Structures are given as C-alpha cells and as structure tokens.
C-alpha cells in the first residue's frame, strides 16, 4: 500500500521529468522544446511537494477547528518554495515563448534545424 503511494507520487514526478527531458532533447520544434521544459518543471515541483508530505498529515493551516488539537501537519517549507518555483517557471516560459514568436517572424519556421545562423 505504502509502496504503491510512493510509486505513484515519486514515480509520476520522475516520469514527468524524463518525458520532458526527452521532448527537450529529441524534438526539433521550438514550441515542443518549451513544452518539454514546462513538463520537466512540473515534475520537479511534484517531487518537491512530495518530499514534504507526512503520512496522515493535514494542510499546514491553523484553522479554528485544528488549532487546539494536536494534529500532525505536513512540512510547509517545500510548499512555500514550490510556490516561488512555479512563478519563476512561468516567467521563464513566457520569455522563451516570446523568443519563439520572434524567431518565427524572422525565419518563418519554428524548427531548430532551419534556424542556424549561429551554430547549435
């Protein structure tokens, strides 16, 4: 049972990272590469939140109901850091996409093979 949960959380995260990695390395289309980067980021964020989870923990919010009961709460630090990481990931994705648009305007293509003014 525990094994299954471990596999489903860590496993999904690692699978997402690897799928994203494949897209970044193997695909020729600029948009696909950016999609791959965002999948990789998503996997990493899931991995990060997973390590903060504590079995039977509750969300780290001291609402009046849980205030005076001794409940185990999950680790809030990874959550706070992932919050930051998600926003940063969005910022990088947005900048990358604007570059894709500009490259497409310039070269009329979105394929890496065709854009070779500089050596890749």
């Amino acid at each position: 049972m525990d094994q299954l949960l471990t596999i489903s959380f860590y496993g999904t995260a690692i699978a997402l990272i690897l799928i994203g990695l494949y897209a970044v390395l193997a695909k020729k289309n600029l948009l696909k590469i950016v999609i791959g980067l965002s999948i990789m980021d998503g996997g990493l964020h899931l991995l990060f939140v997973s390590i903060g989870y504590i079995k039977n923990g509750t969300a780290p919010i001291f609402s009046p109901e849980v205030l005076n009961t001794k409940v185990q709460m999950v680790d809030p630090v990874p959550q706070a850091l992932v919050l930051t990481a998600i926003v940063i990931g969005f910022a990088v994705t947005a900048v990358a996409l604007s570059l894709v648009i500009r490259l497409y305007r310039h070269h009329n293509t979105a394929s890496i093979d065709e854009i070779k003014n500089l050596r890749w």
Partner: protein
Amino acid sequence: MIKKVLIFIFIGIIGFYLVDIFSQIPFGEKRDNVGDFYLEQSVQTLKVANSVTGIVVNFRGFDTLGEVTVLFLAALGLSSIMYRRKKQGEKEVRAKKPSSRILQVGAQIIFPMVVVLGAYVFIHGHLTPGGGFQGGAIIATASLLMLITYRKFKVNHNTVSWIESIAGVVFVSVGMVGLLKGMAFLENFLDVGELNSLLSGGIIGIIYVAVGFKVAAELTGVIDTVLLNNRPDNNNENN
C-alpha cells in the same frame, strides 16, 4: 538515429539515478527539519493561520521579493523582446470579427465575480489557502477574459505601470521601515493581532495585498503584450 540512441541512454542514466536516490528517501515520513519551527512560530509569534503564507511573506520574505522581481523582469523583458517600432499611421490591429453574444454577456457577468474572487484570495492569504500570487493570477485571468471577448477592450498601460510601480514600492518600503526602525529588513513592526482574524499577521497583509496588485498588473501586462503582437508580420523592418 545514433542521436536518438544517445538521448535514450542519457535519459536512462538520469532516470536510474533519480529512482535510485529517491528510493532511499522514504515517502510520507516525518523528518527533522526547519518546518517545525516555522509551524510553531507562525502561530505563536506571527499569529498567521496559514503557515505557508507565513513562510512565503515573513520567514522567507526575501525570496518573495525576488520572485516578484523575476515576474517584473519577465514582463519587462517580454515587452523588450516583442517590441516593434510603430510605423507612421500604423494602428494596432486586432481580429475584426466580434465575439459571440453569449461570450459577451457571460464575460460581463463573470468578470466582476472573478475579480472579487481574486481580491478575496489575496486579502485572506494569511487565513485560507491562497495569497498574492494566486489572487493576482486570478485577476489577470479576468482581464484576459475581457481581452479576448471585447476586441476594443484595451489595457491602459499607464494605469498598469502605476499599479505595478506603487505596489512594488510599497513592498520594498514596508521592508525598509523595519530597517529605519533599527530592526531587520522586512521584519514585522506592526501589531500581530489575533489568530484567525482578518487583521492578523502584521505586515503580512500589507505585503500580500501589494504582491496581489503587482502580480495582477504584471501578468496582465504579459498577456497584453503577447496578444497585441498577434497579427501576421510581413513587414521588413530594421531598427
């Protein structure tokens, strides 16, 4: 073909190491770390119900300042990258077809609701899940709705940049007040109030509202910049 094989070998190696490392890190187990201190202090000292907010805005508030800056720079960089010098007499072209009546009526009803939801999310950031980033993003979605529904809806760049600047300055100034009072940068200098009441958490509320406005303005700016460039570009231009 060789390249594909190499890629798969590379992915295999990385995957193997990841699985290997994470099989040694048990899932769902309690570890000894700084999280406990944060949980304890956010209730006792800061009086913040949502301890994630406590961490994001107070304990690690410096990260959040950096994060807001990243978004600010992304908006700035985006408009710098997409920038095109306007030609004489050139107008901003948008799609000519008006959107459907259903969408328009729906947007009119939904828009204020979404904005209120966003505002609620960032005002109650220290009590319930959510906060400046989430609330700001929700408000940006609302303005996105208006942008795609009404072709003539324009984001007033002046207003956006005022909101953005003032919100950013409020964030940094709140931090500086701490310095001026002889305390640390971003240290709480207000009364923390009662746990689970709206006016609790001292400067956390102020900062999160500022972050909410700033994020909303920045994300709106990002979307608007990308949307405005949404037209075929067949002009020679050298600038």
